Structure formats: structure tokens, C-alpha cells
């Protein structure tokens, strides 16, 4: 089936250690290629688990959006499409800088790698900053579900285009915001973990790691980072875009 998966031969005890057996080759792998492909495969499988993890939240959102459509429309329109679009662009840009980081590591360009990692961290922090602003807005507007939630904005909407909701439907807007915070919160948690790891990678790259041929870690972290980007690529339209009022 996949012949490249098989080790290329029994370990030759007389082989030169420098070329084919670099220091970073672990003892249970036969070749560097095998090690690299294995690590990559492992990371992809982990990303599959992440797809299914977020999948449960998407299912809940899908269901309740259809049951309480009006409340979800109203809730969605309280989000700032400007901030959301900006965040999407920021994250896509950070994916680009991360990909450039992988490229720099592969062509053994230390400065390029450091710049790319730093930019990725910066853009990630910008994303989280904008998210904080958005969360703060929700707090101020009493849209955080729970004790402080107020149905005022939905029962007596300020914007003339908004249809006033009945009080019980307005309560279901809490469900929208619960899912909003759960999904973007889970996403933000993954971003925070990613940025933390980026700091570690930056530190290690500063001390010369990853530009000596062993690019696996940067490669695989890149996969993780792109995946977090993909989750946002789906969260953005689902939460911000699909219930927008048309421009009149």
C-alpha cells in the first residue's frame, strides 16, 4: 500500500553518524524521512480529533439556530462585522507568516524564521486583543448569558431594522450568546495555547534550533496554527455573517 512508510532497511551499524544519523534521529526510527513523516502523520491525527471536538459545538449551533432563528438573527446582528472581518484578515495573515516561518526553517534562514515567528505571535495577540474588545462590548451591553443578561435590546430594539422579539424568544438569545462564547472561547483557548508554544519555539529558534535540518517541530506547529485558522474561517460566517440585515 504506502511503501514509503516502510523502513528502508535494517540499521547499518557501520553507517556514518553525521550524515544519515544526525543527533536528532530518535533510536526507534531508521531514517530521518521516516521520523519526519511519522511526526507529521501524528499531528494530522491530532487535528482530526480537534475537528470532531469542535464538531459537537457546530452541531449544537446548527440545531438551535434553526429552532430559535429570530433570536439567533438578533444576537448575530449585535456583533461587530468590522471587528470580525478584521480578525479574520489578521488570522489569515498570521497563517501566512507561519507558513513563511516553515519555509525559512526549511531553507535554514534563522533570521527569516525569527521574524516569521515574531510576526505570527504579534498577529495572534492582535486577534486576541480584538476579541477582548468584542467580549467587553458584550459585557457592557448585558449580552453575556446568565444573571446579568438583559432582554431589553431584543424586546425593544434600538435599530429600526430589527424585529422586536417576544420575551420568551428574546430569552433564547442567551443560547446564541452561550454558543458564541463557547465556540469563540474554545477557539481563543487554542490560540492562547498556540501563542504560548510560539514563544517557546521563538526562544529555541533564537538559540539555533530548527535551522539545522530538523524542521519537524515548526512544520507540525504550523499545521496546528493553520487548523486554528480554519476553525475561525468557519466560525466567522456562522456567527457573524449569515443572519446579517441586508443593506437597504
Amino acid at each position, binding site marked *: 500500500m504506502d511503501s*514509503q512508510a516502510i523502513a528502508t532497511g535494517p540499521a547499518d551499524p557501520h553507517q556514518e553518524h553525521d550524515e544519515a544519523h544526525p543527533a536528532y534521529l530518535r533510536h526507534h526510527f531508521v531514517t530521518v524521512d521516516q521520523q519526519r513523516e511519522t511526526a507529521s502523520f501524528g499531528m494530522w491525527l491530532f487535528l482530526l480529533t480537534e475537528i470532531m471536538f469542535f464538531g459537537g459545538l457546530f452541531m449544537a449551533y446548527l440545531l438551535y439556530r434553526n429552532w430559535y432563528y429570530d433570536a439567533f438573527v438578533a444576537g448575530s446582528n449585535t456583533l461587530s462585522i468590522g471587528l470580525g472581518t478584521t480578525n479574520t484578515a489578521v488570522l489569515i495573515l498570521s*497563517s501566512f507568516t507561519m507558513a513563511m516561518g516553515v519555509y525559512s526553517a526549511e531553507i535554514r534562514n534563522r533570521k527569516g524564521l525569527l521574524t516569521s515567528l515574531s510576526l505570527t505571535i504579534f498577529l495572534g495577540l492582535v486577534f486576541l486583543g480584538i476579541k477582548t474588545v468584542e467580549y467587553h462590548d458584550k459585557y457592557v451591553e448585558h449580552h453575556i448569558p446568565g444573571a446579568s443578561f438583559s432582554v431589553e435590546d431584543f424586546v425593544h430594539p434600538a435599530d429600526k431594522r430589527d424585529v422586536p422579539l417576544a420575551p420568551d424568544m428574546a430569552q433564547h438569545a442567551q443560547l446564541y450568546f452561550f454558543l458564541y462564547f463557547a465556540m469563540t472561547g474554545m477557539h481563543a483557548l487554542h490560540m492562547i495555547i498556540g501563542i504560548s508554544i510560539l514563544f517557546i519555539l521563538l526562544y529555541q529558534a533564537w538559540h539555533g534550533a530548527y535551522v539545522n535540518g530538523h524542521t519537524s517541530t515548526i512544520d507540525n506547529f504550523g499545521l496546528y496554527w493553520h487548523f486554528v485558522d480554519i476553525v475561525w474561517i468557519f466560525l466567522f460566517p456562522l456567527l457573524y*455573517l449569515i443572519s446579517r440585515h441586508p443593506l437597504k
Partner: protein
Amino acid sequence: MSNPVPVQHEHHIVGPKVYLLILLALLVLTATTTGVAYIDMGIFNPIVALGIGCLKAVLVILFFMHIRYSSRVMMLTVGAGFFTFLVLITMTLSDYISRNWGLW
């Protein structure tokens, strides 16, 4: 049975040009999806939005995540993940859609 011929997988390095192109495509698609959200297309709004989202995701997976240059096993793996996700969504929906509650 003789040993299969060992194949060294070509380690393809994706260059900045490709990445830049994909970045521009993604940014254009983002602007498009935001703009289109303001046009009332009725039932097609969510379809177009999710469609553009899928297109962006495919570009990221193929090029930023190198699947375009990877082995068939990797492509199958990604496919398996999305397939299982779709099973979760569609088969759960099959229950809700076929209930006689008048909500759908």
C-alpha cells in the same frame, strides 16, 4: 514475496510565491464573503457563506498545510476527518428534520 522498493518521499518545499498567492486569494474571499453578507439572497445566504468558507479552508489545507504535495495516506486522513464530522452533522439532523414538529 520480495521486499518492496523503498521510496524516499520527495520533500517538497513550498515557496513564498505560492504562499503569497494563497494569502491574496484568502483575503479577497474574506472581503467577498463579508460584502455578500449584506445582499439578501434568502436561502442562499448561508449556502454562499459556508461555500466560501469551505473554499478558504480547502486553500489553507492544500497549500499552507501542504496536502497538495503530500502522500495519498495524508489526503485520505484529512478526508476521513471531515467525513466523520459530516456523519455527525447529517445523521443527527436526519432525526431533527424528520420530526413532525413544524419547526423545519
